[in-house]
């Protein structure tokens, strides 16, 4: 048994911190949200089943993403006999192997920003998301919400200020 094997509490915390990030990481390549969730869940199940055999030479997070890659590869390998998946498998395998910590870190920043945006006041959040998520111009937002363009700019400024405050030392 590995000395630093996962106990249930640590496993639950690992899930809580990284499950959504892992799903988004997988989804960024598969563009299949259901499959991404399924792979992520299978990764966690495997991790738990092998908890006594694993010794984390790197961080649990790194191990988790590596395991997710392997699980996704296994998934495509299992389906490579099906011609529909053959090309996809080759492409994904190449992509998956090229991924590095930087990509994961980038997603991690996005997840933190998504968390911070969720903390904004409702009106500020709505305006910020219409701009950054939906890509609307300030004029379009003003028209959509029946407010002045100046009000839109004021809320965008406040949103950015608040996000920096929330994400200080985190990004």
């Amino acid at each position, binding site marked *: 048994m590995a000395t630093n094997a996962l106990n249930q509490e640590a496993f639950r915390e690992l899930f809580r911190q990284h499950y959504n990030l892992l799903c988004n990481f997988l989804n960024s390549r598969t563009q299949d949200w259901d499959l991404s*969730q399924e792979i992520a869940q299978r990764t966690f199940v495997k991790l738990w089943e092998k908890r006594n055999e694993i010794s984390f030479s790197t961080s649990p997070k790194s191990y988790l993403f590596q395991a997710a890659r392997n699980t996704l590869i296994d998934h495509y390998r299992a389906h490579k006999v099906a011609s529909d998946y053959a090309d996809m498998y080759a492409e994904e395998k190449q992509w998956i192997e090229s991924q590095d910590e930087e990509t994961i870190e980038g997603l991690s920043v*996005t997840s933190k920003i998504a968390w911070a945006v969720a903390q904004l006041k409702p009106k500020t959040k709505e305006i910020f998301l219409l701009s950054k998520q939906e890509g609307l111009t300030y004029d379009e937002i003003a028209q959509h919400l029946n407010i002045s363009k100046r009000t839109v700019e004021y809320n965008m400024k406040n949103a*950015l200020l608040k996000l920096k405050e929330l994400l200080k030392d985190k990004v």
Partner: protein
Amino acid sequence: MKRLEDKILQFFIRGDSAAGKKIGKEISNDPSFNQADFDTYEKIWQASTDIADWKVADEDDAWAKIAAQTGLQETSVKRIPFWRRRSVAAILLLLVGFALYYWLTWDPYTTFRAEEATTVILPDSSSAEMTAGSEIRYLRPRFFSEAQKREIFLEGKAVFDVVDDPKPFEVVTSLTSVEVLGTVFSYEAEGDNSEAENVEGLVSFGSNTGAFEAVQLNPGDKASFDGNELVVELYEPEPEPVIIPEPSNKMRIIDLIDILSDKYPSRFIPGPGSDRSASVVIEVNLDQDLVDIIDQLAADEAVDIQYRKSGNSLLLSTISAADRGLDIDYSYDMYVNGVDYNRAPQQ
């Protein structure tokens, strides 16, 4: 610094517009410009565009599936923000404080002091007729009905009318107590002195300290205890008055003449006209002396009597009377048979 930060914000908001570019130049020329600070803003600004592709997974559902496959507990563990935990802790502390205060100060008993003579209806519908200045204390209705006995603490005096109930009704004073099921009784307590009087039913008067064995009080009985001595006054009913029957003194004239002749053979001599209207009933008291009997008859307006005294004897010439419809109480036969005329049965 504040002004610079405001310019940086404006720079991102205005973007590539002419105003944005102008602000950008001003920022870079500002001596207090901090590149690291600016980079943080830029990173957030750039990365926030990526949230368009960010999805939020249902973690509870996922954990339930993982738990089902691994045998782990399914219970969702949700992190509670620190400020919320602190709020909850504060509220809990407040509630505990209130509960503690309530627990320490709350009295399950209700106390009633009668400023003037008052009748109080107790939770079991029994009543306490209190004198002015008396005080009773008993459990609040909810607890009163749940208690094993109906317990009342008394100072002063009250008359209790207790409704029947399987649960004993007990009135407690400083040293004594009265226990009943259903009855009427009065109870008075002043300091260590107490006195109970039963009116109806059966009452048990006992000591709270074991100073004496409980005594049963029947209706009318009284018991008192002054802290040293128990005094029980058993009720003794007034003897029933002896009803003395009215003398049976109604008889026919003929019977009266015969009785007096026998009773006073040498002193009473009826003449030949002495039996006029002999069957008419007259009233006479035979317990008197012969002379008094004749005087009584002479005084009766309905009676016509003529007689003459001769020495100690009395010669009766005539006696008659108006018929007043009186019934006979006593007769010559009864006299002969030894029946006391005063006790003669009604005929």
